């Protein structure tokens, strides 16, 4: 039987060569990638939300965790991340301007705007690294209990946080860190804290002006402060000293907070890094005149889409890690 029926319309609408979405193959695929990557990031952020809602009463307060600004001493929550956000939005703007100049075939303008975009991206990645380093190093130090809860210290008179060095007593119990070159080969200790548990406990008992703060958030949205008696009682649960944050322990509170912080900002930072690398490749292609010869700057537009996407993700990371 004759099943292949040809009609007139096949030649025009369905005959191929049409672009119903008015986007080239490369641009469509970039959008395809962006949508799937957006779903990946959503998965990460929602699982962060899951863990947070699960421990809603004990989750660390971001304003107390990220308080530092490079070259400045003191307590400035959010200022630095706000700066990072601005840098990333700014580099998005120079990217849009590069795309715009590309549409007008102005090669030199595209070069300079791409250059500015790369610089912005590099500043952002550098800031991210600094933020990580500060977070890993830690602020005040804390104790961890048998159940994995974190006990932090507060000065009773001022209500400010007390660092371990403020009250811990140095005891004659120096132990040398075991390194791989000594004793059994290829075995070494992890990091060693600057004070032992014993030194912190002795110092705490000798200083009546120090109180313990638990992870639990009270009705005022602040961490619960124990009385001196409760503090001494709670101190007996402590099993180790924690300084800074890593994937296993975290002086700021819930360990999951540090895990998600490293994972999500790390994954985003990796996107920014690869974005900078791709931008550099495109940058050199522009200088070499590749797109001038090709007759259009669509590659700049495509890499631009990726770059804006990275900015878009940061807007969400900023909200869910630093603001909410």
């Amino acid at each position, binding site marked *: 039987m004759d099943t292949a029926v040809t009609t007139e319309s096949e030649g025009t609408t369905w005959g191929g060569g049409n672009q119903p*979405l008015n986007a080239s193959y490369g641009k469509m695929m970039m959008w395809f990638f962006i949508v799937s990557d957006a*779903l990946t990031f959503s998965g990460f952020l929602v699982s962060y939300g899951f863990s947070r*809602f*699960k421990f809603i*009463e004990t989750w660390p307060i971001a304003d107390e965790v990220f308080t530092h600004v490079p070259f400045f001493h003191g307590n400035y929550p959010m200022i630095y991340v706000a700066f990072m956000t601005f840098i990333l939005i700014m580099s998005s703007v120079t990217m*849009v301007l590069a795309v*715009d100049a590309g549409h007008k075939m102005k090669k030199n303008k595209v070069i300079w705007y791409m250059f500015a975009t790369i610089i912005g991206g590099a500043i952002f990645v550098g800031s991210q690294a600094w933020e990580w380093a500060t977070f890993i190093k830690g602020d005040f130090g804390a104790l961890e209990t048998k*159940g994995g809860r974190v006990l932090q210290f507060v000065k009773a008179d001022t209500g400010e946080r007390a660092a371990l060095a403020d009250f811990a007593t140095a005891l004659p119990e120096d132990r040398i860190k075991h390194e791989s070159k000594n004793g059994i080969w290829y075995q070494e200790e992890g990091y060693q804290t600057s004070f032992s548990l014993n030194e912190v406990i002795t110092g705490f008992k000798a200083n009546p002006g120090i109180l313990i703060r638990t992870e639990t958030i009270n009705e005022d*949205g602040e961490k619960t402060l124990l009385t001196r008696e409760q503090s001494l009682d709670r101190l007996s649960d402590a099993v180790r000293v924690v300084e800074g944050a890593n994937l296993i322990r975290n002086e700021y509170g819930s360990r999951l907070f540090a895990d998600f912080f490293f994972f999500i900002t790390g994954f985003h930072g990796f996107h920014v890094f690869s974005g900078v690398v791709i931008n550099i490749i495109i940058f050199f292609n522009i200088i070499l005149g590749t797109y001038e010869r090709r007759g259009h700057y669509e590659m700049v537009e495509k890499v631009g889409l990726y770059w804006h996407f990275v900015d878009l993700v940061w807007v969400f990371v900023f909200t869910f890690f630093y603001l909410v």
Partner: protein
Amino acid sequence: MAHAHKLRIFRWAGGKTFKSNTVKIWWVLGFLSLVTAVEVILGIFKPEVLTKNYFVGMKLLNWIFIILTLVKAYYIAWDFMHLRDEKSALRRAIVWTPIFLVSYLVFILLYEADYIYNIFKNGFFAWDF
């Protein structure tokens, strides 16, 4: 050229037609910076009216943050990623797919998280020791 830009934006505020794409971009930058500044100021001062009052189990302040984030996301996607200038079919395919999937994911995971929170709180389960 095929790159016709729609230059009338901010329609919620009466609308503003820009004379070129470049000018529009700088205005969008100004707007995004303003929104970020508002977020940071609210985050530093935390007005009590917004932190003491709740709506659907979340502080008003957090609702404001999330809404402002979505506003920023809208302008990044619409003007920086120039979705505003794309065909509506492409725009809808890109935008509604994640919105639909992510809304479901958010609902199911946060609902389950709240359930586990209640188990930790009310069940005979020791975790604070």
